[in-house]
Every structure is written in structure tokens, then in C-alpha cells.
């Protein structure tokens, strides 16, 4: 059961009015006044066009917006649905709004979603981001359908990406999560995803560690995989967002890689004895890459890599990395920038060493994650140098090769995982 104590009286009252629902789309907000109206309209259109007979609800969970977000939602709620003699939902499309705190937290928002889903006994849920400006009515439908109609527990999105978008996912999160958990989910870390009511109940009944609160979707995916539930992917198309600056690379790694390492630790019983990987069913087009004119400039990545490595190698990296790994890193850190190359084999070993160190808590886990940042910069610099002119197909081939390298070296991870130090 979900933790109902999280629910305010007002939210409970709203849930009582809805009663039972088949589908729930949640939209966590925090100062999204510019896009929230469009996002809610898109979800409503999705219901009107795709789920006309079903009991549906939209849940807005707000993290204490200080802009006009809440007023805009309130105004939308007061507006009556337009009456159309065309495709339109037979039932009331419910809009539920609640505030879970005074600061944004995706994890806290999701806990509210879990509780609401549990109390409404929903069959399928989706979460969409109000920051996504390309949100299309088809998105919510594509995220909900596999969970609603086909018994999939987790539905990851597939976006059409430009070549140099999502490099952390391409070079780290996807290949490593695929190798460790054995399931080929391309976008496990995403701002839109779908899940079944059953998975919501399962996740709602577990404590959510601080390490996964910023990106709980990946934790949900791993939960589904480790509980023997089926996962799928749905193609959504190109994704554009409101330019916000977003978290810096340190915070991004803390949120995503920290999440991945935590899941490796928390679900070790599942993957330690597991070999190979499985593909998941994909609805719609497969992962798409579009060409991009010029790669992002690596700026000072190489310099930051080298300086960071030199600063950390004795004090921190020594406690994290295996001796051979450290030696190899020293060698590449000494290279000239023109000849610099971060081999895939080494990159995989670095990450496995880090994951094992995180597991052992060799040093503070946060220090471990921060220590990864300069190394990632080095790998990124090398990758961009190698692929500035690559075609999308070549990029994909490279990613696949990297995935296979992660899989090939999985025994190394297990060995390091089980080592005493």
C-alpha cells in the first residue's frame, strides 16, 4: 500500500471525488507558468482522442511554485470542457491538483503519484514534464497504452535525438545499465515515462532512498526488471524543452550516475548472477538520431580532466580504482591533447571500479561521484574528438560496441564487487 499519510486532506477529497480511474497522467510542476497550460491541454487532448471510454485523470503535483503556475491550473480547472460533436471523452476528465512541499523533488512528487495511483486503483500511469515544449497528445497515449493494454510494467520513452544530445546516456548510463541489469532500455533516465498500477504499488510500498529521489524513473525501471515485470519502449519523437540552464555536470552525475550506482547496490541480488542482455518491445519507430551540423565544443574538458585527475589521483582515485586502472589513467593523462584517447576498455573498467567503490563505500559516496566528473570530462573529450564527423550510423555502431564492451567486462565488475577492498 502507498503511504497515505503523505496525502493532504484536500487531495484525499479530490481523490474521493474521482473514485476509481483507469488512467492517470501526472505532471510534476515547479514554476512552469509558461508551459503548464499547454501541457495539461495536451494530456487532455490525448485522453479525448485515445481513451474516450476510460476513466481518466490528470494529477498535477506542485513543488511549491512561486510563479503563476498554480493560478493558471486553477483557471484551467474552472473552465468547462468545450462541447464538441466529434471525438470526445464520454466521461469526465478529472483534474487533480496538489502541492507536496515547498521545494521541488521529483521523488517526493512521485510518492504522491504512487499514493494517488494506489487509491484510485489505476491500471496505468504516465509522468510527463511540463518543461517539454514538444509534448504532443500522442505522447501520453504512447506511454500509457503498453501498460494499460499489454501488461507492460514500465514504459520508457524513445526520442529522436540529434547526434550530440544525451552523451552521458550514450556513453555511460545506457551501456552500463544494460550490461548490469540485462535489459536494453535506451532511455531509462527521462522526464517522461509510463508504468503500470502494479508497479506503482510495488514502488509505493518501498522507501525511496535519497540517492534516487532526483531521478526516480530509473529506480522504477530497475524495480520492474528485478521484480520480473515486463518493460517496453515507446517512440515519442523529437523532444524540445524550455531552456532552463539545468543542473551542472557535477549535479547531473550525482543525480543519474549516483542513481545507477545506488540501484546496482540495492538490487545486487538480481544482477550478480545474471548474464547477457534482452531487448525490450519497442512501440513505434526505434531510437532515432538526426545529423547535427557541428559537435559541441569540448572547451576546457581536456584541461579539466587532466587537472582533476592530477589533483585526485593520490587522495581519492587511489581508494576507488584498481591499480592497473589507475596506471592506465596516468598514462593517458600524460598524453598530448592532439593524441589523447580514452579507450573504451579503460572507460568501462573505470566505471566498474567506481561502482564497486560506491558499493563498498570506500570513501564518501558523494566524493566518489564527484571524483568521476573529471574522468567523464576526459572520456567526453575523447569521444567528441573521435566522432566530430561521424554519421548517425557510425555513432550508433560505436554505442553498440561500447555496450558490448560493458557486457564483456561484466565479470570484472563482479570480481571487483565481491572483492574485500
Amino acid at each position, binding site marked *: 500500500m502507498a503511504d497515505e499519510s503523505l496525502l493532504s486532506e484536500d487531495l484525499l477529497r479530490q481523490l474521493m*471525488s474521482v473514485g476509481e480511474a483507469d488512467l492517470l497522467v501526472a505532471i510534476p510542476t515547479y514554476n512552469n507558468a509558461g508551459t503548464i497550460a499547454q501541457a495539461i491541454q495536451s494530456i487532455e487532448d490525448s485522453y479525448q482522442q485515445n481513451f474516450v471510454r476510460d476513466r481518466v485523470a490528470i494529477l498535477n503535483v506542485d513543488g511549491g511554485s512561486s510563479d503563476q503556475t498554480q493560478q493558471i491550473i486553477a483557471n484551467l480547472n474552472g473552465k468547462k470542457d468545450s462541447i464538441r460533436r466529434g*471525438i470526445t471523452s464520454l466521461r469526465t476528465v478529472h483534474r487533480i491538483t496538489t502541492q507536496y512541499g515547498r521545494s521541488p523533488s521529483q521523488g517526493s512528487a512521485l510518492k504522491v503519484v504512487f499514493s494517488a495511483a494506489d487509491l484510485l486503483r489505476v491500471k496505468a500511469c504516465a509522468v510527463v514534464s511540463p518543461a517539454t515544449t514538444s509534448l504532443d497528445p500522442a505522447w501520453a497515449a504512447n506511454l500509457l497504452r503498453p501498460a494499460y493494454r499489454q501488461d507492460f510494467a514500465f514504459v520508457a520513452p524513445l526520442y529522436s535525438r540529434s547526434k550530440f544530445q544525451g552523451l552521458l546516456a550514450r556513453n555511460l548510463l545506457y551501456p552500463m545499465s544494460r550490461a548490469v541489469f540485462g535489459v536494453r532500455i535506451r532511455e531509462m533516465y527521462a522526464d517522461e515515462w509510463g508504468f503500470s498500477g502494479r508497479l506503482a504499488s510495488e514502488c509505493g510500498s518501498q522507501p525511496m532512498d535519497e540517492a534516487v529521489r532526483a531521478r526516480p524513473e530509473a529506480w522504477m525501471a530497475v524495480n520492474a526488471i528485478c521484480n520480473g515485470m515486463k518493460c517496453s519502449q515507446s517512440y515519442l519523437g523529437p523532444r524540445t524543452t524550455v531552456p532552463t540552464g539545468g543542473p551542472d555536470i557535477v549535479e547531473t552525475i550525482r543525480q543519474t550516475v549516483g542513481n545507477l550506482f545506488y540501484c546496482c547496490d540495492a538490487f545486487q541480488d538480481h544482477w550478480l548472477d545474471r548474464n547477457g542482455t534482452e531487448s525490450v518491445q519497442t512501440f513505434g519507430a526505434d531510437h532515432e538520431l538526426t545529423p547535427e551540423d557541428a559537435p559541441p565544443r569540448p572547451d576546457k574538458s581536456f584541461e579539466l580532466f587532466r587537472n582533476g585527475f592530477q589533483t585526485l589521483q593520490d587522495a581519492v582515485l587511489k581508494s576507488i580504482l584498481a591499480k592497473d586502472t589507475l596506471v592506465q589513467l596516468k598514462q593517458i593523462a600524460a598524453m598530448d591533447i592532439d593524441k589523447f584517447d580514452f579507450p573504451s576498455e579503460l572507460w568501462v573498467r573505470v566505471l566498474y571500479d567506481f561502482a564497486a567503490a560506491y558499493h563498498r563505500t570506500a570513501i564518501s559516496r558523494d566524493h566518489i561521484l564527484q571524483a568521476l566528473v573529471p574522468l567523464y570530462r576526459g572520456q567526453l573529450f575523447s569521444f567528441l574528438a573521435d566522432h566530430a564527423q561521424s554519421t548517425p550510423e557510425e555513432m550508433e555502431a560505436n554505442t553498440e560496441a561500447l555496450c558490448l564492451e560493458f557486457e564483456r567486462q561484466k565479470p570484472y565488475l563482479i570480481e571487483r564487487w565481491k572483492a574485500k577492498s
Partner: protein
Amino acid sequence: MAPQDDKLWYKDAVIYQLHVRTFCDSDGNGVGDFRGLTNKLDYLQELGINAIWLLPFYPSPLRDDGYDIADYTSVNPTYGTIEDFKTFLNAAHARKLRVITELVVNHTSDQHPWFQEARSSRDNPKRDWYVWSDTDDKYKGVRIIFIDTEMSNWSWDPISKTYYWHRFFSHQPDLNYDNPAVKEAVWEVMKFWLDIGVDGFRLDAVPYLVEREGTSCENLPETHTVIKELRARLDDSYPGKMLLAEANMWPADVRDYFGQGDGDEFHMAFHFPLMPRMFMAVKLEDRKPIIEILEQTPQIPEKCQWCVFLRNHDELTLEMVTDIERDYMYDSFANDKTMRINLGIRRRLAPLLENDRRRIELLNGLLLSMPGTPIIYYGDEIGMGDNVYLGDRNGVRTPMQWNGGWNAGFSSSDPERLYSPLISNPVYGYQSVNVEAQRRTEHSLLSWTKSVIQTRNSFRVFSRGSIDFLSPSNHRVLAYVRQLGEEKVLVVNNLSSSAQAVELNLQSFKGHIPIEMFGRNLFPRIGELPYLLTLAPYQFFWFRLRRI
């Protein structure tokens, strides 16, 4: 209560719809008749209805349940004589029951003498009483109504070797209202029955009276002109008589049939789109379909009134719903395709609701508490079943079930001679569902129906009051306030199959005490806070709001 001479009597009526053939057979020939019906008037009076709507009882080849009239001014001999009709009418009036008869004026039977004359030769004086054409190209694109049986609105007449126009079956040629003689003849028919004493007419298929090239041939201004003329003559010569329109259209389109000003066309018109939406709302457990259609319903002149109904002699028509809604209705109420006909469902109320007493009561409660004059279809007050295997819509036109004895008390004839087989299955058969059995028990559907009609009849707010919908956040609850002067009634309906709690914003009635109208129990006074009610599955409340 409205006095008998109240010219707005139709606004306060509860109408009972029946076919003479189906109700009671007095002479043992297997077919109901006027003498049988007259014998049952006490039953109708006891039920509490105050108007009877008779389906066509005229001489007819009966290829469309009497809607194919072969003689407008006499009674089908199977049902009796004109004298029998007069006796019935007088007996009904003596019991304060008004009588509304059916007037099918868009078309006649092809057996009507008018058509026989018209087709006999191209220069016959009655030739122009119908719509003829040498080709079937005229009025291209006009929709065909009976899509299951008709391929065209034109049929070839082998006698006069031309095509004739018909919007319904090919054996029902349309009259030509561009011919003044036709209008005069129809008025003569109306006068005939008005002079005998009928209280009103239900005019069948009114949108189709006039045809014009390049149009849909529906709802044309010329059609409205014809109706206005008839109405003016009616008001001049027979004040207090009523015209009821059958126009299966969207409310905004039907609005025109009430006419201008105080209403110079029909006094009443059916609200067709509301009917399927009441079923849909209960199935969906969501008030949305009802609210949406009533929000689309325009205001009508003060002296006019909508007619609302749950079921009638036709299929549960699904013309006035969207494709999505129609699919849902079919899936929900007519999964077996045998139950479907034309664009509708040929089933009675009780089988549609799976014989669930709670839902039957809820829907009747809605019918009797919403704005409009309610119509109850014969047999639905006892929960009669249907027989979808009888062809056309005959399955909802089986003999009335009076008792569990011989032929359900309907006729003393041999069962084989009955105009239609009785319903005899274990659930709805006359042995278990009949008037006599239900009269004996205080908690029968019949007793309940009497009680609820009596309550409605006791408060004119139901028939003439305004309606204001409340918007509780619980969408499974449909709540509204009816108000007429100081008379206020709060109606709260739980459309769902589970118990519900609902908070009602009754601020404008602060200080009033809700009095439950069936048990006359007092509920807590309305205060500052939202008024909390809990309702059992499909339960409804009617509260008088009184400031005591």
C-alpha cells in the same frame, strides 16, 4: 394540481404511451381493442398518469405498426368502432385522463384511397397530393432513414410508371405539402378527431413535410410554415388542445419547432438526445453526458415543454449521439447484434438495465424529476421484458401482462391466435412479471412507480420549475435544484454502482431544511459548510427545501 381546464395541462402531465392492440382484448380475437382498454382505465388512473398517448389505431395494412395509415377518420375494425373510441374517450375524460392520438401526416399507406387515386392516372385530381418524378435524380443526397431496408427515397410505381418520394418505407408515400388541398385535408382530419374530443396530437415525422432541391429536405422553412398554419387554426377553433412534435433532432434544431414568441408551432417536442444519455450516464457512472446535452438545450417559450422518455415503441434511437457514443451504447446495451435495428437498440427498459431494480428506479427517478413532461411506455411500470427475435421492433410491442393466468390476462383467445407471442421466459415472463402480482406487494416496481408518480404530481415544481445543476466534485453524483416560486426541490442521484459521498454547495439555501419527499424525514439544516450526503449504489434523494 392543475385544473382540468388549464390550457397548459400538457406541462403537468405524466403521459402513458400504449398501443390499443397490445393492452387488453375484450372480445377474445387475440388483439387488444378499445373496449379492453376502456376496461383498464381504472388501472391507469390508479397508476397516477394523467394523459394517454395512443399509437395509431386507424385502418392500416400494418406494415409499419399502424404508421402506414389507410384511413384517417375511422378505427381499425380489429380494435373496434368509432363508437368504441368515443366510449373510451369519455371514460378517460371522466377519470381526468387526457387522450393524445397519433397523427401521421408526412405520409400515408400506399393503400390509402388518396394514393390509390393519385397513382391511377397522371391526370387524376389527387395526383398532386403526393411527390412524383420521372427520374430518381431529384433531391440527391437526402439521407435514407431506414438504412436497413431502403436503398433510395424514391420508389418506382408500376401503375403510373413514375417514381414517388418516401422518406420512410417504400409503402409509405410522402404527401405533397406544396398542394393546398393536402393541407386542407389534413386539417379536416384533425377537426374530425378534435370534434370527437381528443386532447392533442402527436405529429409523426414532422421535419420531412416539404422537399426542396439542393437541401436535406429536413426542417425547411416551408415545413415550419405548414405547421404554423395548422397551429393557428387549432388555437382559433380548439383552444387548449396540444400538438406534440416528433423531430428526432438535436435540441437546437428542435427549438425551431416551438416557433416564435410564445410558441406558434408545437406545444411540446420530444427531447431525443437526452434519452440515450441517461442510459449512458448510468453505465459510465458519470453525469457528463446528461449535463452536456442539457447545456446544449436552448431555452424554449414559457408555454412550451420538452417531452422526456426512457423507452417507447421504437428502437432506443442512437441517431442523436456521436459515433463513439453509439459504439459504446451498442457494446454496453446490445452486445448481441440481434438487439440492434436501424441506428438503435430494440429493447425494453428492464432488459436494458439487466432487470436491476435499483437502476430502473434511478432512471425513472431521473425521468420524473428532470424538466419536461415524462412519458412512460406501457409495461415498463412493471418491468416487462422483450423478445428481440420477433422481427422489426415487435419485441417491445408484446401483450400487456395483467396476471399469471391464461394469456397473461390479456385475451381469452387461444394463445396461437394472439397478435404476438407473450413474453414467457423465466425472468420476464408473465407468470412472474404481471400487474396482479405486483399490486399485491407494497414493494413491487408497480407500487414504487405509483408512489413516485404521486409525489411528482403533488409538486408542480417538477413540471414547471426551473432547473439549476450543482457541480459537486464527485462526478458520479448528478444533483440539481428545481424551483418554482417558493417551492424548491433538491434532487441528488448516485449514478454509480457503489456508495458515494458528496458535498453539495447549497450556500444559496442556507437555513433551509431538506425534507426527504418519500419518507418525509427531516435532514440537518443547511449551514455554512458544504452539505454532506452519502448515497447507496444507484440511490437518489428528492428533498423539499423548506425554510422552517
